[in-house]
């Protein structure tokens, strides 16, 4: 009797507790959170996009096989568990039960297999997703919930890449029937669905109430915020005004406004060093004048990076000296001393050694031809301002630089073709394997090797780094790689900015993730 009574009380308390939790969770649901973006995605097909904003949106729309927790450990995503063979060639994943795509289709191993095969297929022309899969040569569905990847060689970045939102599984049958429309309304498996995309204005994401297969650091169940809107506002002054008036909820702060908004003490402001080199000048080594390495080296000594950080970033960043920033694993701190610094005397000497002498009007020339080139950049504020400062900087040395702006999608196409003599670029990435994407000769023309530099020795180094599963060995190879790239002067790295993200005060439990974004899976709004 007493035992039954105790049991009843226990059950009642448990039910009450559970009910409170559920009620608390339920009562958190609702509201709209508006995130500002300067750029609009090229497409929302995660396998076809090359744009960072599309990957950011896919943090909400997709759920990849693996995830990274707040200590940067790899944890389950869509895959419950996984094993890797000792030779690193066979990866087996056990998928969580009950996961479905946004259209209700169950996510089986066959469906994930089809998705991965689509990413790798040459017809898809995937700029990033395919590179992230690397040497995956076969995908098999062992049974309905077991997926096996077979690699042709060990690939160190894969464990990290499988947590990238661009490798979230998509419903291939829906993609086939939607054709090009799939890029406007993708079907994936994440906590949010793409509800609408009004060109030039916004993308609206709606909460997916069926979502229960999130990573372990997220509460079990669907997200709380009802709608997430990505609003495209090109002008930075308008962005800030809209944020301060409360019309938008989350904003990447322009450096100019950081101090002022911090002083109001009204907003949560997160800061982190961008995971990527924010701006670098990239030479096309197959075209005059930068086919000459002596000239490229001279340029590296001629450009004053501290001024750029001070003026363009208002001091909120650091000069960059190599292809990797301090915020990505594998960065070698010794690169700061190893790489060229601003040294006008040395620059002048190197220009002379490359055969350039001042002409009658002060412009450097060689064999009667002036040293002049056109720099391509996107119209983004920081890019244009950096370009103008570099232009003035170079004029002091007798180098004439013209600036030509192209919209982001167009500039990618031109760089791939090798139209440019030099261009500005920046990147955000998670892995030192970004060096494969920028420097391997396999990526000339179809990928992002915009310097069009083909060097078997560099390819071999990159290959070794991708194979090395021992972390110490891998780090050592990346030291060599950073030195090599600096020696060949393929870039002039310019700066890496601090990212400041401001949030309105009516959100709770929003957390900054080490991968460089605001995690909203547990966040809820106090004002709806």
């Amino acid at each position, binding site marked *: 009797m007493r035992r039954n009574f105790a049991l009843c009380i226990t059950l009642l308390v448990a039910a009450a507790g559970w009910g409170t939790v559920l009620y608390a969770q339920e009562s958190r649901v609702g509201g709209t959170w508006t995130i500002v973006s300067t750029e609009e995605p090229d497409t929302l097909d995660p396998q076809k996009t090359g744009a960072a904003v599309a990957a950011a949106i896919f943090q909400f729309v997709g759920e990849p096989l693996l995830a990274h927790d707040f200590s940067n450990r790899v944890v389950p995503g869509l895959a419950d568990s996984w094993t890797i063979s000792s030779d690193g060639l066979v990866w087996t994943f056990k998928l969580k039960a009950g996961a479905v795509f946004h259209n209700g289709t169950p996510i089986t191993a066959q469906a994930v297999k089809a998705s991965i095969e689509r990413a790798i297929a040459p017809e898809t022309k995937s700029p990033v997703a395919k590179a992230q899969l690397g040497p995956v040569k076969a995908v098999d569905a062992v049974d309905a919930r077991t997926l096996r990847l077979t690699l042709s060689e060990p690939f160190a970045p894969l464990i990290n890449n499988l947590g990238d939102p661009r490798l979230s599984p998509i419903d291939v049958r829906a993609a086939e029937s939607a054709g090009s429309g799939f890029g406007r309304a993708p079907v994936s498996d994440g906590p949010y669905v793409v509800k609408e995309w009004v*060109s*030039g204005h916004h993308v609206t994401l709606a909460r997916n109430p069926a979502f229960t297969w999130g990573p372990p650091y997220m509460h079990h169940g669907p997200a709380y915020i009802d709608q997430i809107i990505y609003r495209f*506002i090109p002008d930075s002054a*308008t962005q800030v005004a*809209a944020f301060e*008036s409360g*019309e938008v909820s989350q904003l990447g702060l322009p450096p100019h406004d950081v101090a002022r908004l911090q002083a109001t003490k009204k907003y949560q402001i997160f800061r982190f060093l961008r995971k990527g080199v924010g701006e670098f000048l990239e030479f096309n080594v197959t075209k005059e004048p930068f086919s000459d390495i002596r000239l490229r080296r001279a340029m590296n000594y001629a450009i004053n990076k501290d001024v750029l950080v001070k003026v363009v970033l208002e001091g909120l960043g650091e000069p960059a000296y190599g292809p990797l920033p301090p915020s990505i694993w594998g960065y070698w701190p010794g690169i700061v001393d190893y790489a060229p610094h601003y040294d006008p005397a040395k620059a002048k000497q190197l220009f002379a050694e490359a055969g350039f002498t001042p002409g009658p009007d002060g412009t450097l020339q060689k064999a009667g031809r002036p040293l002049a080139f056109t720099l391509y950049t996107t119209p983004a504020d920081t890019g244009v301002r950096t370009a103008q400062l570099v232009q003035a900087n170079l004029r002091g040395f007798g180098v004439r630089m013209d600036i030509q702006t192209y919209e982001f999608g167009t500039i990618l*196409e031109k760089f791939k073709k090798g139209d440019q003599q030099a261009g500005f670029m920046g990147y955000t990435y998670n892995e030192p394997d970004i060096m494969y994407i920028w420097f391997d000769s396999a990526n000339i023309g179809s990928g992002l090797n915009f310097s069009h530099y083909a060097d078997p020795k560099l390819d071999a180094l990159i290959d070794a780094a991708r194979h090395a599963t021992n972390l110490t060995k891998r780090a050592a190879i990346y030291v060599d790689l950073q030195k090599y790239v600096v020696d060949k002067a393929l870039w002039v790295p310019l700066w890496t900015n601090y990212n400041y993200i401001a949030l309105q005060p009516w959100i709770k439990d929003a957390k900054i993730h080490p991968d460089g974004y605001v995690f909203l899976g547990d966040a809820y709004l106090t004002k709806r």
Partner: protein
Amino acid sequence: MPVLLVVSVLVFLMSHLTPGDPATIMLGENASAADVARLRHELGLDRPLAVQYGRYLAGVLRGDLGRSIRSGRPVALEIWDRFPPTLQLTLGAMAIAAASGVLLGALAAAGRSGAADTIVMSTSLVGISMPSFWLGLLLILLFGLMLRWFPIAGGDDWRALVLPAVTLGAQAAAVIARLTRASLLDVLPSEFVRTARAKGLAAVRVLFRHALRNALIPVVTVMGLQFGALLGGAVIVESVFARSGLGRFAVAAVQSRDFPVIQGIVLFAAAVYALVNLSVDVAYLALDPRITYDR
């Protein structure tokens, strides 16, 4: 109509004479020579220029303006999608400019060298000279942020239209104000005005009803021309206020060298402009019974 024909020829020539082969652009870097040749044949790029123009014209008359290189969607659809916000903005700006311009100009003329006159003239000078970019941001700060009367990156309702329309219409309003004032000053001393007064027609308002109708004829002409300026100015205003419209879309198309879109927008804008000026001609009939058209 002949204007539109000339525009279509110019627009067609523009894209065919600029460097860059559309087929290569569309297929991308990895296309084989055979693929490029095949697409050129499909698009009719290997036919003589006159034939290509003929096909283009036939397409336009059917409503087919080609496909956007960037998105692959039909150009006509892309333009039609984005035209309503720009139309709203331009009409709103035109309404504000016309109403405030005529009113202020009339007040200035009535004041005749008084305080009202000076105020209106100097304000209009500022309005003509102020860059719309700066005015827009100023209005955002004052009415959007400080006073919170209007939304900044607003949505669909009329309140989101006010600040952009005022920004866009400011310059036109200033021009119209000055012209109305000058025109009224011309008309006020005339016979029929004195007659109306002598007849004892009561309110000054009624006077303005008579005098203004006459005075407005040159003003209406200018309004029609201003409409073109407004369509152009919409580009800047749409960027500042983050509105998705044809102006911003045109800039994006130029930046991405999306020729079919650029051609389509130019043709479309020319057609709209021609239509507006036709309406101006019709408006004359309402304003001045002396004007008739021989057909």
